[in-house]
């Protein structure tokens, strides 16, 4: 059983990786040394994403309630945005999840997104691994309020709920690329508002025309309407989505390769050869396009972006 002491140790472990005091393996070893859980323990990771104000936190609160009633322990990692100007953040997701205080089977941690731009924080993935190592049955990852292309939750979650609300746009919105492509379950929240049936219908048409079978459910998270159906659907789909492993790995490999390439490019821009090219640009010896081509040649042969 999960104790209050586990909460403290897990919280400190998350801080240590979030603030880059230690790397994940050391933090995992430390948790293990405190004798918490067998190394083979596996958590199901549930992603909850969608636009700001769609009711994600309120829905997560209801999911915690339902999962606890079924006897499962739950850790929540909830991400809110950092200011790109001051690096400060106000993390307010807990406001909707207060009633679980004192229940050691529920652990809730807020994270500021810091420099990351994909809807999660740089250390969210590590925090999920730590919560798993601490022994929680389910880990819920709530993203920042996202637009259409903050999709990083794909690389972290086994099952993704895309939460939307009525009347955010017409049916064309449902066939655009991005957010709608990562859903394993669609939730139309605030279903008592005008246009809920229309939104659900648009999503169902979109699903029907696609290749994957994705349930579309309506909820009112505020009063719990639709939650039994949502919980049943989650239970049915957990562990069944084999395709997500491939999707997650592809996404993560591309992301890391892109990050590595960007770091390498930044480093190379300070090399003597690159500085010489930039100097020629400054002196109007070459055009901008010439400079770009020369620099990319320095980085490892001609590279064409298109």
């Amino acid at each position: 059983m999960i104790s209050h002491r586990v909460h403290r140790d897990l919280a400190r472990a998350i801080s240590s990786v979030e603030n880059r005091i230690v790397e994940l393996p050391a933090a995992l070893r430390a948790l293990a040394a405190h004798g918490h859980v067998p190394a083979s323990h596996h958590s199901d990771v549930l992603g909850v994403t969608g636009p700001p104000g769609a009711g994600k936190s309120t829905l997560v609160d209801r999911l915690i309630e339902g999962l606890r009633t079924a006897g499962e322990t739950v850790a929540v990692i909830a991400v809110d945005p950092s200011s790109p100007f001051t690096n400060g953040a106000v993390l307010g997701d807990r406001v909707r999840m207060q009633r679980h205080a004192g229940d050691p089977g529920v652990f809730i941690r807020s994270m500021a997104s810091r420099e990351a731009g994909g809807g999660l924080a740089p250390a969210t993935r590590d925090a999920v691994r730590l919560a798993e190592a601490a022994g929680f049955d389910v880990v819920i990852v709530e993203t920042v309020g996202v637009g259409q292309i903050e999709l990083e939750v794909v690389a972290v979650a086994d099952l993704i709920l895309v939460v939307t609300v009525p009347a955010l746009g017409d049916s064309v919105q449902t066939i655009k690329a991005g957010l709608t492509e990562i859903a394993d379950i669609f939730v139309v929240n605030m279903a008592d508002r005008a246009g809920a049936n229309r939104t659900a219908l648009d999503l169902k048409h979109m699903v029907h025309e696609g290749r994957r079978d994705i349930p579309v459910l309506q909820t009112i998270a505020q009063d719990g309407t639709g939650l039994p159906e949502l919980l049943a659907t989650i239970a049915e789909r957990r562990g069944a989505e084999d395709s997500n492993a491939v999707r997650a790995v592809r996404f993560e490999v591309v992301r890391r390769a892109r990050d590595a390439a960007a770091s390498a490019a930044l480093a190379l821009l300070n090399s003597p050869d690159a500085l010489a090219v930039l100097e020629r640009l400054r002196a109007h010896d070459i055009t901008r396009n010439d400079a770009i081509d020369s620099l990319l040649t320095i980085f490892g042969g001609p590279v064409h972006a298109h």
Partner: protein
Amino acid sequence: MPIKVLVTKPGLDGHDRGAKIVARALRDAGMEVVYTGLHQTPEMIVTAAIQEDVDVVGVSILSGAHMTIFPKIMDLLKAREVDDIVVIGGGVIQDADIPKLKALGVREIFNAEATTQDLIDGIERIVAEYGRDRTRRAAAHAR
């Protein structure tokens, strides 16, 4: 690393304007502020402080209940073996009560005359004094 602060309002009083202004001022000073909202019990406050692993818990009390709430918070922190999270208070707190609160382990009281800048400076100073211990502890914990 950014300073992480819990801004919280215990008890029955429903005035959270000040707490929100504080949350925002601390955000603008580059801190990560976990805001809990109104009507928090000591159990909720301590649970949040531990799970969020904040550097500082800022408790805003305007109702006069500070001599009941603070002892409960400090007792619960002790019961959960947490000795590295600093508790500070703000709001309407009589001068005569301040030494009593400090004796309980409340580190600082920012009264109604304090500006948000006083609060920012105070938190930065407190964390500069205590923060190194926390960092060391986190590193030792992972060894």
